[in-house]
């Protein structure tokens, strides 16, 4: 039986055989992954909310500025970013970059058509075949933006905790839930006429419940996998695991269980006015926080098998 010796090496300075923690992808990548999922999720949901312009615009800006900015800050050579177009045949990062770029172009073209200054555009207000084309390309590319980060993580088998086909499903669910949360936070700015809070809250209820079940199922599945994957689950869940405080409190507790409790309370008690908004805003903020820390914990909990 393999020894369970978890070593967190200083990358490049490791001289002992044992499990190795992944240390390269940390805060910035967690920000990029989380904001990509939430921003694209917000955009897609806003399109289906009768083209809610503010939602589409905020989603687009989150992807362009925060996700894009985080990626550029992370890269060793950010000015070479356009080289990432070169390898879509094999690399999910390349495919994701192309999808992100296409999302920003076509999503941007679609969004600006709703502004009065661009009423002269042939696809003004998203009308016509051109508007529809831009819309659906942006939706498809947005979906890719939501899921490709999970595929980047799941593709190589080096880190068994990530190498699971449930990871993309989980990330889509978390991305959409993040989009719902951001929509709810926008409610005071768009008003009840543009946004049916009860419908969005119902969507949130379904997504958060699903994500909680998915997450538990994911952890259960990987816990039955290789020892390195079990080590990752130990790091996340067990006391003294290194990430257990963050995962148990911020992801499970505040990020999933608390928002779920709030939205179920809203469902059963049916508050109205500012009371309703305060509750859903609280749930939304908690969900967004939990969504970010989920990505962060998953990245930091990645453990490689010993080479021997």
């Amino acid at each position, binding site marked *: 039986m393999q020894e369970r010796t978890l070593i967190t090496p200083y990358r490049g300075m490791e001289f002992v055989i044992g499990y190795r923690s992944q240390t390269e*992808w940390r805060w910035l990548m967690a920000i990029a992954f989380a904001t990509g999922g939430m921003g694209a999720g917000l955009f897609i949901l806003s399109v289906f909310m009768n083209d809610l312009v503010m939602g589409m615009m905020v989603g687009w800006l989150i992807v362009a500025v925060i996700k894009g900015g985080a990626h550029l800050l992370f890269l060793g050579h950010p000015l070479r970013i356009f080289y990432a177009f070169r390898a879509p045949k094999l690399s999910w990062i390349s495919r994701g970059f192309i999808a992100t770029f296409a999302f920003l172009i076509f999503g941007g073209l679609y969004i600006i058509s709703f502004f009065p200054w661009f009423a002269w555009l042939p696809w003004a207000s998203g009308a016509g075949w051109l508007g529809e084309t831009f819309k659906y390309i942006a939706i498809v590319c947005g979906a890719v933006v939501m899921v490709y980060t999970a595929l980047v993580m799941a593709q190589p088998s080096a880190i068994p905790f990530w190498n699971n086909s449930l990871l993309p499903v989980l990330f889509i669910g978390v991305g959409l839930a993040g989009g719902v949360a951001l929509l709810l936070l926008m409610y005071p700015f768009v008003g009840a006429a543009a946004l049916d809070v009860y419908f969005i809250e119902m969507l949130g209820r379904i997504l958060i419940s699903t994500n909680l079940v998915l997450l538990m199922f994911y952890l259960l599945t990987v816990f039955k996998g290789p020892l390195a994957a079990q080590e990752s689950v130990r790091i996340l869940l067990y006391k003294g695991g290194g990430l257990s405080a963050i995962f148990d409190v911020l992801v499970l507790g505040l990020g999933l269980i608390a928002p779920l409790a709030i939205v179920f309370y809203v469902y059963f008690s049916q508050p109205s006015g500012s009371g309703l908004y305060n509750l859903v805003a609280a749930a939304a903020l908690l969900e967004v926080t939990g969504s970010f820390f989920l990505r962060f914990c998953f990245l930091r909990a*990645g453990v490689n098998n010993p080479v021997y």
Partner: protein
Amino acid sequence: MRYGMVIDLKRCVCCDSCTMACKVLHYNPTKVFWARVLEKEVGKYPNVRKEFLPVLCNHCESPPCVDACPTGASSKREDGIVLIDYDLCIGCRACTAACPYGARTYLRKIEGYYPEKCEEGYWGICGLTVNEQMGYKDKQSGVSTKCTFCFDRLEQGREPFCVEVCPTEARYFGDLNDPTSEVSELITKRDGKQLRAEEGTNPSVYYLS
């Protein structure tokens, strides 16, 4: 042709000559080791011993690092050597995450071994010795680096430096596709094993135990 290496674990004494030779030849900065010797304690007191495992890039036949690279900076040559084009590398570290052997190192910052030294005359640039200045001048930070099987020495008809300097001759190098080569014969006769063969990467480095 497929270049490969065979390492005899019965001969390795963990002298780290290979580690230092590689570092010296390639002017690898601090915290970058393309070749290392890993240690593992086995047994229980009083019957304790150490096992040594020299590791380097395995130059896999199905390299996951090449699949992960978004720019094509990581590529596999026809002779089996996996190389990095530093001018294409954007420093995303996907290859580092994808490698199951920990063979890649991200060169965050090029630092000398004596950063505090700044005596006029000898040090030239503060923090870098004259040797380091010479060796680092073509180095790029912000890229991934790894063992290259000393491809430039191979072109001169020489072996990788770690093979040449090993005092116990624990390393062998040759063409894995040639059944009559020394490496192929050793693998066959002594049942050479690959690291983490179950990953499906088909490494070009074999170990004899």
